[in-house]
C-alpha cells in the first residue's frame, strides 16, 4: 500500500513557507530509536560521572543540612522579624515555577497541536517532576515543627480539628500534591510505549524484566494505541488547568495576605507567566548541552530551541508588563503604604535584587527577538541561565523585600541568608541533578514513539513520506 501512496505526487510547499522538519537529515524511524535508546544502552559517558558525583555530594550536603535544621531549629536559617519567610519560600516558588514547563509542554502544547513538543516533552516532564520534588521539600522543612507537618492534611482525628481551609497554605498542599500526582501519571503514561521499546531491545534479563514490568504488557496493538491516545488526551485535558492553577495558588500565598507588595490581584496570571518563563529557561539550560553531549542535535533541532526562545520572549515580556503594572497600580491606587513599598523595592536596601531581577527577566529575553541569537546555542544557553537567575531574584524580591519594610517602621529589619540557607539551596540542585542524570541513564529522554510520528516521512502525504525503496535507511 505504501508504494501506491508514494506514487501520488505531492507538491512540496513553496520555498520560504517550508518549515524546518522536526527531525533533520530525514532520519528514519529506526535511526531515531537507535539514537534515543542508545543513550541508555551505550557505555556510561565520562561526563555523566563527572556530573553525577558532584550531584550526589550535593545531595548528601542537602540531607545533612536538613538533619541539622530539624535537629537544631529553624533559627539556623536567616529569617527573623519581620521577614519570617526567607530562602525556603523563595526556593519553593522558584522550583515550582521551573516545574511548570514540563506539563505545559506536554499538555497545553499537545492540546494546541504543537508537534514540536514531542522532542522535548519527556525531558521537560522529568524536569518538572524533579523540580516539584525539590520544591516540595521546602514547605515541609521550613515549618517549626517538621514532625507535625502532616497536620496540614485533612486527616480525621479524635479532636475533630480540621485544617484551616481558608489558608492559602492549605490550598498549596492540595495544588502541589495534585500537580505532582498528575504530572507523574502523565509522564509515566507517555513512557509506556517507549518502555516497551526498551524492553524489546533489552540485552539483559534484568533490563528486560524491569522495563517489561513497567511497560505493563504493551504490545503496540491497535487497541493499545487507541486506548493510549484517548488516555493521553484525557490526562492532557486534566493537566492543562493544573498548569494554570498551581502557580496561581502559589501566588495566592502572597496576594491573599494584606502586605503591600503581596496584596495584589495581578499575581495569579503574573506568576503563571513567570513560571512558564522560568520553566522554559530551565529546559533550555538543560537541553542545549544535552543535545550536543548525547548527539541528539537532529532530534532536538535548532528549530526547537528557537521556538522555546520565542516562548521565553513572550512570557518574559508578560512578566515585564506585570512589573510595570505593579508600579502603575502602586501610584494609581493612592495607597501610601503600597507606594512606599514599590519605591523601596526599586531604590531601597534591596535595590540590587530588584535590578538583577529586571535585567535578567525583562532585558535579557529581548535578545531573543534576533534570529541569529536564537540560533546561537552558546548565547541561548548563557541567556537561559540569566533567566533562571532572574526568576530566582523575582521571588526573592517579592518575599523578602515586601516583608522587610512593612507597616510599622519600628519593626523593620534586613534579611540575610545563612550558610545553611545557601547550602540547602545548592543541595536541592544535587537532588535535582541526581534524579535527572539517573533519568537520562535509565529512561528514554525523548518520546521515541511520538517523535517518529512527527517526522516528515511519517506523513504519508509528504513527498518523503511512506516507505522508500531500499528499506529503512
Amino acid at each position, binding site marked *: 500500500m505504501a508504494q501506491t501512496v508514494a506514487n501520488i505526487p505531492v507538491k512540496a510547499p513553496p520555498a520560504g513557507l517550508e518549515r524546518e522538519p522536526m527531525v533533520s537529515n530525514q532520519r528514519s524511524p529506526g535511526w531515531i530509536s537507535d539514537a534515543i535508546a542508545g543513550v541508555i544502552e551505550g557505555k556510561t559517558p565520562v561526563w555523566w560521572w563527572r556530573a553525577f558525583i558532584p550531584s550526589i555530594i550535593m545531595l548528601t550536603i542537602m540531607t545533612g543540612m536538613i*538533619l*541539622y535544621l530539624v*535537629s*537544631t*531549629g*529553624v*533559627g*539556623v536559617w*536567616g*529569617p*527573623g*522579624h*519581620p521577614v*519570617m*519567610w526567607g530562602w525556603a519560600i523563595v526556593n519553593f516558588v522558584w522550583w515550582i515555577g521551573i516545574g511548570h514547563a514540563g506539563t505545559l509542554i506536554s499538555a497545553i502544547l499537545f492540546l494546541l497541536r504543537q508537534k514540536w513538543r514531542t522532542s522535548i516533552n519527556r525531558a521537560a516532564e522529568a524536569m518538572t517532576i524533579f523540580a516539584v520534588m525539590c520544591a516540595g521539600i521546602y*514547605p515541609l522543612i*521550613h*515549618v*517549626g*515543627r*517538621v514532625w*507535625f*507537618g502532616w*497536620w*496540614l492534611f485533612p486527616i480525621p482525628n479524635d479532636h475533630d*480539628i*480540621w*485544617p*484551616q481551609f*481558608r*489558608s*492559602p*497554605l*492549605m490550598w498549596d*498542599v492540595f495544588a502541589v500534591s495534585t500537580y505532582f500526582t498528575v504530572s507523574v501519571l502523565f509522564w509515566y503514561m507517555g513512557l509506556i510505549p517507549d518502555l516497551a521499546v526498551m524492553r524489546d531491545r533489552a540485552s539483559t534479563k534484568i533490563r528486560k524484566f524491569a522495563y517489561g514490568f513497567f511497560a505493563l504488557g504493551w504490545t503496540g496493538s491497535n487497541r493499545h494505541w487507541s486506548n493510549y491516545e484517548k488516555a493521553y488526551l484525557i490526562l492532557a485535558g486534566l493537566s492543562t488547568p493544573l498548569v494554570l492553577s498551581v502557580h496561581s495558588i502559589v501566588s495566592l*500565598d502572597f496576594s*491573599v*495576605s*494584606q*502586605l503591600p507588595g503581596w496584596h495584589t490581584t495581578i499575581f495569579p496570571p503574573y506568576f503563571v507567566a513567570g513560571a512558564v518563563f522560568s520553566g522554559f529557561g530551565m529546559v533550555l539550560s538543560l537541553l542545549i548541552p544535552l543535545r550536543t553531549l548525547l548527539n541528539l542535535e537532529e532530534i532536538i533541532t535548532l528549530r526547537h530551541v528557537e521556538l522555546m526562545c520565542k516562548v521565553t520572549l513572550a512570557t518574559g515580556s508578560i512578566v515585564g508588563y506585570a512589573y510595570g503594572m505593579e508600579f502603575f497600580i502602586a501610584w494609581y491606587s*493612592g495607597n*501610601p*503604604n503600597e507606594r*512606599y513599598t514599590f519605591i523601596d523595592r526599586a531604590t531601597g*536596601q534591596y535595590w540590587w535584587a530588584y535590578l538583577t531581577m529586571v535585567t535578567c527577566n525583562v532585558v535579557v529575553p529581548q535578545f531573543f527577538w534576533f534570529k541569529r541569537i536564537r540560533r546561537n546555542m552558546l548565547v541561548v544557553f548563557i541567556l537561559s541561565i540569566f533567566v533562571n537567575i532572574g526568576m530566582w531574584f523575582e521571588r526573592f524580591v517579592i518575599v523578602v523585600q515586601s*516583608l522587610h519594610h*512593612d*507597616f*510599622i*517602621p*519600628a*519593626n*523593620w*529589619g*534586613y534579611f540575610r541568608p*545563612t*550558610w545553611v540557607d545557601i547550602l540547602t539551596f545548592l543541595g536541592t540542585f544535587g537532588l535535582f541533578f541526581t534524579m535527572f542524570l539517573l533519568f537520562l541513564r535509565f529512561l528514554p529522554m525523548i518520546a521515541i514513539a511520538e517523535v517518529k510520528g512527527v517526522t516528515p516521512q511519517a506523513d504519508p502525504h509528504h513527498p518523503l513520506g511512506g516507505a522508500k525503496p531500499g528499506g529503512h535507511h
Partner: protein
Amino acid sequence: MKTIPPPCPTPETGPKYWRSLDQVSDTPAFRQWIEREFPSGASEMSDPVTRRNFVKLMSASFLLAGVGLTGCRRPTENIYPFSKMPEGYTHGLPKFYATAMPSRRSAIPLLAKSDDGRPTKLEGNPQHPDSNGGTDRFAQASILNLYDPDRSIRFAKNGGPATREAALDALDQVAKSAQANGGKGLSFLAEQSSSPSRERLQQALATKLPQAKWYEYEPVDFDIHREAASKAFGRPVSPYFKFDEAAVIVALDSDFIGGEEDLHVNIRRFAKGRRTQQAADSMSRLYAVEPLMTLTGANADHRLRAASGTIGAITALLASEVFKLTGANALSGSLDSLAKSAAGAEKFATECAKDLAANKGKSLVVVGHRQPLAVHLLAWAINSALGNVGQTVVLRDTAAPKAGSIAELAQSLGAGAVDTLVILGGNPVYNAPADVQWEQAQAKAKSVIRLGYYEDETFPKNGWGLPLAHYLESWGDARTSDGTVVPIQPLIEPLFGGLTELEVIARIAGLDKTAPYEIIRETFTAVGGGNDENWKKFLHDGFLAGSAAKAVGGLTLDSAAVSSALSGIETVSPTKDKLEVVFHRDYRVDDGRYVNNGWLQELPDPVTKMTWENVILLSVKTAKDLGVYLENTGNNDARGPWVKLQLDGREIEGPVWPQPGQADNVVALALGYGRTVTGRVGKNSGYNAAKLRTTKALHFATGGKLVASGKFHDVSLTQDHGAMEGRPIIREATLKEYRDHPKFASGFDMEKPPVFDSLYPNPLEPGKKSALHQWGMSIDLSACVGCSSCMIACQSENNVPIVGKNQVSKNREMHWIRIDRYYTGDPDKEDSIQVINQPMLCQHCEAAPCENVCPVNATAHDQEGLNVMVYNRCVGTRYCSNNCPYKVRRFNFFDYNRRPLEQLEGASVPGLGRVYPTPMLSRTDGESDLLRWWKDMDRGNLPDDQFELLKLVRNPQVSVRMRGVMEKCSYCLQRIEAAKIKQKVKAGATADVVVPDGTFKTACQQACPAEAIVFGNVADPASEVSKRKAQDRDYKVLDFLNTKPRTTYLARIRNPNPAMPAPYNYTTPNSTEEFEKANDANPFEGGESKEHGEPAHAKGEA
C-alpha cells in the same frame, strides 16, 4: 488580683512534726543545733549544683521551716505528703504576700505571688499609701536574680569552699576580738539602706564597738537630694517631689522618669499631671535641660541640649530670671557673671522663668543626682522663691546617714589601720572610682569578710565570702520614699543558705538576737508597738499605716549657705578635643547589679534600643565631627565604630553609637557593664565605665579624647529604624490643637476600602452574642513614658524566654510587648528632635489577618474577642507573623527556654558565619545532648543547675513554649480565666457571673506606674476601658486595614509653651507635621465629620 492572704504564721507555729522533745520545747540549744546541722551540710556540697544536691538542700531548708525560723515558707509537698494541709491553702492557687524590695534609700512595696511555695511574680502593693501597684523594671526583674544559677551558693574561705558553721564561728571570732578592743581595726563598708533595723543595729554597733568604723558606698548615689535639702534648709530633711501637683516642671539634668530613685513614684505622679480625659482638662508642662537623651527628655515638651558642665550656669541664669520676675532674690552676690557663661540658653531660660513665675506654688525645679551640690542649692533657691516648697515639693524629716566615704576607707586601709574589713553587699573592686584603687586597698586589710550576692570581682581571696540572701529569702524592713515603714518578708527559705546583712551585723556586734526575724520584730516594737496584732497587720498589709515621715512646714531657705556655695559652680563647655564624659546609671543593669539578669540584659534601652551591652553615645553632630558616624543602616545587627576613649591618662574601649538629641561634644557612658568576673549572662557585655571615674569627677568630667580605631563592633538593637515615615502610627497634637479639634485623632485616619459581605462570615460575630465579656485594651500615649516596666512584667508573667545577643541581632527577641520608639524631626536639627514611644502588643483584631492564613487552625478567635494562640496545634509556618501588620507575633526559632545562651550565640566561623551546635553533636554536663533528649525530652540542653533553678521562676499557669511554635500576647488569658472562675464560684447559683470591672489586671497594666494601660470588658459601657475608648483621643493603629483591633490608643498630647523661641518652638508636633507632609493631609480639618473617623464605642466594634 490580690487574694487576701491569711495572717502570716507566727514563728511559734508550723507543721506539727517534731524529732525530739527539745524541738518541741524549742530551746535555744535546739535552735542552734538545727541551724548548724543542716545548712552546713548544704554548704559542704560544693558546686556545681546537681539535682541531687539541690533537692537535699531544699529538704534541709524545709526542716528549718518547721521551727519557724522564717514565717511564710510552707513545706514543699514533694518532700512531705500534705497529710495536714496548711490552712487556707488550695493546691494550684497562687498566694500573695506583702513584701518590699529595698533600694538605695528607699524601697518598693510589693505583693509577691507564691506558687506552691516559690515566688514567681512581683507586683506593686496597691494598698501602700504611696503606690498604685506600679513598679519599675528593676523590681519586676529582681525575681530572676533569686533563681540565678550563678549567684553565690557557698561559704568560702580564702577563695575555697568552707562550711557554714565555720563561717559563723569566724564571725563570732571577729565579734569576740572586737569586743575585746572596742572594735578597733574593724571597718564596715556597706551599701545604702533605708532599713530602720539596720539603722538600729548600726547604733548598737556604735555603742558596743565605739572604735569600729562604718563606711558606705554607692556608685550611683542619690543622697545628694537629701544633702542639698538639708543644707538649704538647715535641718536634716529629704525632699519629696510631687510632680502631679506642678503645672510647670523644669528638669535640670534630672532624669526623674528614668534614672533617679523611686522611678515608679515619679512616673505615677508625672503621668497623673499629664493625663487628660477631655479637651478642657489641663496638663503639666515639662522643660528638660540635659546633656543626654533621657526618658525625661523624651517626655519633655521643650528640651534644651546642654553639657553637664554648663547646667550650673543655666541654673544660675534661670535663677536670675526667676528672681527678676518674683523680686525675691534672697541670695547675696550676683548670679550674673555665672549666668553669662550660659551662652545660647538665654531665650530658653527666659521663657522657662516666665512660665515658672506665672505658676508660683504650682511649679517645680528639679536637679539630677549627677549635678554638684551647689546647683542643687541654687534650685532650692528657685523653688523657694517660687513658693513651691511645701506645695510641689515636700520636705520630710530624715536622719542623716553616719557613714564615711569609700575614699576615706581606702586611705585608712592604706594606712594599715584596718584589720578586719566587712563588706556588706556592693562590688567596690568593680565599681569604685579608679583613683581609689580599691582592689589594692582591699588587699591591705588583714582579713576581709564579704557578704555578696555573687562571687564577683570583690569576692575576697583573703578572708570569708558569705552568700547574701535575696530579699525574697530574707526578713528585713525598709522605708519607702515617703518614710512609710514596710516589711521585707521572705517567701522562701534561702535557696543556698545565704545570710542577710542584718544577721551579719548582729553577729559581729555580738548581739543576743541574731536571727533577722527577731531583729526586725524588735525594731517594729519600737516603731509600731509590741502588739502582736499590729505586727500581723503590718506583715499582712505590707506597710505600717501612718508611719510616713512628717512633712516639715515653714522652713526658710538658708540663703547664706546657698550664696556661699555659688562660687563652687564651674562652667566647663566641652569641645571636640576636650569632650565631656558623663557617667550615667544604666536603664537596664543599674550600676551593674543586674548585669547577670537576662531579662534586663535583653530589655532594650528605652532610648537607644540597645541590648546586651553599653555603647559610647555621642550626638549625631559630634559623631560626624569625629569621623565615627554610623549611617542608619536599617539593620538591627548594626556595627558601631570601635574607639578608644581617653580621660586623664585612663582609657576604655567600646563601640560608638550616635544618639540623636544628645548634647554636642558629650560622651555618655553607662555604668554597670564590662564585668570581668560574673555569671553566664553578664560576661562579655560592654565596657567598664567606672575605670574612668574618679572621686573628684564622679559623674562627669571634661577632657575626654576619642580615638577611632578603624575597627567595628557588632551591636544588637531591637529597633534601628527610628523614623515613622509620616505614617499615622503614633498620633500627636498640642494641647491647643486638641482643644480646638477634640477629635483630631480620627483626622489621621486613612481611607478605608469598601467592605463587602464576606463569603466567610467572621466567626466572632455569632459568638459575641452569647459571650459575657468582650475584652479590650486602651493605651494612653500621653501617659506612657516608655519606662519598659511592662515589658519585664510580661516576661515574668508569661514565661517569655531570653534569646541572647546574637539572636536579637537577627530580630528574634521574644518580647510579647515592646515599646516602639520613634524620633521625629530632622536628624540634623538635633535641638528640635522629639522622641515618642508606643507600647505595641497583640492588638487582638476582631478581623485578625493572622487567623485565616494559618493552615492548621492554631490561632483562632474566642467568643470574648481574644485572638488565642494554640501552641499545641502550631506547626510553625510563620505565615501568621508575615500577615500581621503590627508584627507582634514571636517565633521560637530555637528551644530558647531549654538551651544555654552559648548555644544560642553559636560559634563564629570565618567564611560561614554563625554555627549553632546541633543537639546531635553537642554535649552538656559531659553527656551527649541526643542521649539526654532520649532520656528526658523536657530537660533540654541546659546544665543541671540552670535547669533546676530556672524552672522555678516559671509561672505555672502559662505553658512554656517549645521551639517551632509561634507565640504572642494573650491579654494574660490565665488571669482572665482565673477571674472568671473566681467570679463563677462566687456567683454560685446566681447569674452574677460577669467579672466586675477592676477585679484583675493584665501583667503590663499592673506594672505600669503611669496607668497608661487599661484593660477590661468593653461590652460594659461603665468599665474603665470603655470610658477610655469613648474619649475623643481614641484611635486604632492601621485603622485602614479594617482589622478592627481591640487594643486602641489614646493620642498623645504635647503641651508646648507658645512663647518659646526657635529652635525650641513648635505649633504642631513633629510627627504631625511629617504626617501632613507625607500624606498631603491635615488631620485638623474636618476630622470630626469623617464617618470612618468615629472613635470606637464601648462595644469595641469598628
